[in-house]
């Protein structure tokens, strides 16, 4: 490969317009590229209009791969295509989303390129003196933060969704689109996508909610979540859950909050029957006010919450719901 130069991002197409992760990656990529004094590239398997969106957002050159089938991309053909673009573009670093696509693709791409990878980065910086990208990521469920440097060129990083300020599109901004036809002659896929199914438990997205009422092991079963729904309704919020509640089958998996679930940043987070394990707190640590309701006074949640009551949620929540309703009606 030629001397590594520039930052490359893997943009993901949405339904019609670009998926939001794409603008977040472009925002982060632009900041790194500016710090390095180098150009910003993007690779996208999508539509012309989406490539134009990328240029408007600040990408200097888009490598446009053929758009995938309606069922979505197949890893076995996407991987060699992306690898070929990387070798052609020869960037110093590449950002992908820590998304279903990134989790599938990035580690395999790293092995093919013989380079290092840091996953689920929530902060990025360019160290000009050392000439390298530094990525910060949570370990042990978020108990500690590790600052890591993936080695080789390109340095690979998957970036946590919603952790980066997205780029602001400026229509009319220049840039070029390079149509890239991958050479898939040697590829004989042994897999196929049968179908893609969209599931949405609630109209309101957990990640955007201002108020979240979340339940954990202490809620004891699906019926207990009724109390949480009533409180959430009065507060104009959304119900969430810990991994334990989801894995026990009490609520749909879309409600899971935590390192491997949704990351929320509400004004108010009410944790009901949640012990406060690190991997869960990673999903709500940014909440402005955290309230804990738990029967166990030694539960770690009481070290993370701003306000708390030690007691039974079945008695506390109805009274809290009524009190909040009364306050709202004043």
């Amino acid at each position, binding site marked *: 490969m030629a001397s590594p130069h520039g930052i490359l991002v893997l943009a993901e197409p949405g339904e019609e317009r670009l998926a939001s992760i794409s603008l977040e990656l472009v925002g982060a990529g632009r900041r790194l590229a500016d710090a390095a004094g180098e150009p910003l590239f993007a690779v996208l398997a999508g539509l012309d209009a989406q490539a134009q969106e990328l240029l408007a957002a600040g990408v200097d050159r888009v490598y446009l791969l053929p758009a995938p089938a309606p069922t979505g991309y197949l890893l076995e053909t996407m991987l060699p295509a992306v690898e070929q673009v990387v070798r052609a573009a020869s960037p110093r670093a590449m950002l992908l989303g820590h998304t279903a696509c990134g989790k599938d693709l990035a580690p395999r791409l790293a092995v093919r390129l013989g380079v290092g990878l840091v996953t689920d980065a929530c902060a990025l910086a360019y160290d000009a003196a050392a000439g390298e990208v530094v990525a910060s990521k949570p370990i042990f469920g978020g108990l500690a933060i590790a600052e890591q440097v993936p080695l080789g060129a390109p340095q690979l990083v998957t970036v946590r969704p919603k952790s980066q300020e997205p780029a602001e599109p400026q229509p009319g901004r220049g840039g070029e689109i390079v149509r890239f036809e991958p050479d898939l002659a040697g590829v004989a896929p042994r897999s196929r996508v049968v179908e893609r199914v969209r599931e949405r438990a609630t109209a309101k997205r957990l990640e955007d909610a201002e108020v979240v009422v979340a339940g954990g092991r202490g809620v004891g079963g699906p019926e207990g979540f009724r109390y949480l729904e009533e409180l959430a309704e009065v507060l104009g919020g959304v119900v969430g859950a810990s991994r334990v509640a989801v894995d026990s089958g009490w609520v749909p998996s879309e409600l899971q909050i935590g390192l491997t679930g949704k990351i929320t940043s509400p004004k108010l987070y009410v944790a009901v029957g949640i012990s406060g394990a690190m991997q869960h707190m990673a999903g709500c640590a940014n909440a402005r006010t955290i309230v804990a309701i738990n029967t166990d006074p030694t539960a770690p949640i009481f070290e993370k919450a701003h*306000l708390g009551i030690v007691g039974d949620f079945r008695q506390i929540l109805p009274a809290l719901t009524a009190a909040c309703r009364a*306050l709202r009606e004043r």
Partner: protein
Amino acid sequence: MPGGGGMRIIVCLKRVPDPEAPASLFRIDETGQRLVAARSVPRLTSTYDESALEAALQLKDQHGAQVTLLSLAGEDVSEWLQETLATGADEAVLVQDAELAEGDSFVTAAVLASAIRKLGAYDLVLCGRQASDTDAGIVGPALAEYLGVPSAAVVRRVAVQDGRLRLERVLEDGYEVLEMAPPAVLTITSECYQLRYATMANIMAASAKEVAVWTRADLDGVTVDRRTRQRRLYLPEQRRACELITADSPEEAAQRLAQALRARGVI
């Protein structure tokens, strides 16, 4: 599928300090580079690896399979593997090497790939979607690349139909159904798979088995080739003085909480 009846499934497991242990029991060591858990913190199977094992055991229940446990560790953890065998797996292999175990995810993946090649023909390799300590999620897909087989990350359900794998992979807003010809590597998430308890019969059967222990000398072409450099490790500010609301009754406490929230301008 190789073998007369049934498949061969290899489950990769990692032994980690209990991720649910209180944060106060963890500290950063003198080098400033490693997070160390107090001796009192139990060591157990990484959370999502348990789900991978349950997925394997369910396939074994449905179709018949030989389930092999595989782990890389720096010390002798055969006792833990022996206990894990008691859930219903058939055999266990431990690759024991302190230096290799200290390597990054790519070293782990290369070691496991080498061990799997040594084990012979297989249909399916299952890993947890990410380890509870590193939270990297790199080993599974990297392993597939080293082995040159298809893979899918964050699979919530896997079935076998007419000799092919049919799986559901979690997406941001739903899931996709994939069909794959084995052999393949899948990383498993916990939604549908909770590891079963050991039965008396399986405990008895496991106690009669030996965990095979391999060293670096038993594997082909494995080097400690690190691809990541850690600059710094730190504990983010976590401890908080929680205002505990007490009252004569839960209802009164709830009232005071509502008032406190109103006073803080939250509601």
